[in-house]
């Protein structure tokens, strides 16, 4: 199973960076969806099945649909895009920044001071998610409901027809 995590981690990193770097918005949205799907697979392998399902269906599906809808509602010419945002020049340093940060992080994690805690035995069965969500984290449910209502009201206000 470790090989699956390594492959998905690599693909998630590549597509995550591509989502930021690509000039085409459509390709960026698709790269983000692939990165989300890879994260979903990693979650599944680590035993977080419900979170993986949410990640794949909502982040990889719904958010991509939202982005593609927004892109289809705005039709800027590709030539104008380069002039408007100057993204290509501004994103040119990202690989260098990532390489430098990667080297620094590798030096940190290979130093003798750095150590991760050992994996603890599973304290709860996987099917206690429902119990945790509805008993211990009930405040989160109310918070989520409020956030969703706020989002819905905001969208109604933003898309209101002008008189």
């Amino acid at each position: 199973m470790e090989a699956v995590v390594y492959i998905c981690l690599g693909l998630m990193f590549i597509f995550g960076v591509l989502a930021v770097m690509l000039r085409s918005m459509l390709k960026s949205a698709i790269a983000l969806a692939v990165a989300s799907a890879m994260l979903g697979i990693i979650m599944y392998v680590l035993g977080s099945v419900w979170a993986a399902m949410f990640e794949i269906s909502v982040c990889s599906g719904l958010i991509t649909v939202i982005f593609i809808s927004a892109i289809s509602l705005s039709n800027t010419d590709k030539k104008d895009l380069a002039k408007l945002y100057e993204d290509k020049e501004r994103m040119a340093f990202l690989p260098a920044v990532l390489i430098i940060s990667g080297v620094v992080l590798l030096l940190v994690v290979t130093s003798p001071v750095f150590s991760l805690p050992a994996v603890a035995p599973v304290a709860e069965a996987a099917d206690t998610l429902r119990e945790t969500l509805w008993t211990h984290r009930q405040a989160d449910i109310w918070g989520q409901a409020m956030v969703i209502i706020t989002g819905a009201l905001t969208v109604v206000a933003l898309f209101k027809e002008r008189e």
Partner: protein
Amino acid sequence: MNAFVETAMLVVGFLLIIAGCYGLIRTYHLLKIVIGVEVAMKAVTMFIILAGFINGKAALAQTFVITVIVIEVVVAVVAVGIAINLYHNYGSMDVRNLRKLKG
């Protein structure tokens, strides 16, 4: 699963946060800014799951991740709504146009 996998996840997560923040501060396109935020949030989601895996409390980590995902969607929807309004008003999704708004 050995500690090397967890360390690799930590390194990749930090690199994704750096990439997301770089995209956040180096572009003027509002949708690209939201994509930068989403990329950074992917790494944060992975960290929460990793913490749950190490502590042996996967169910608790999953509840937090579900909350993060809900907030992620609402942030994306509201930001896209603002971006479309910006496009209708100024013909582009350049965030510098937000300075021209009243108020």
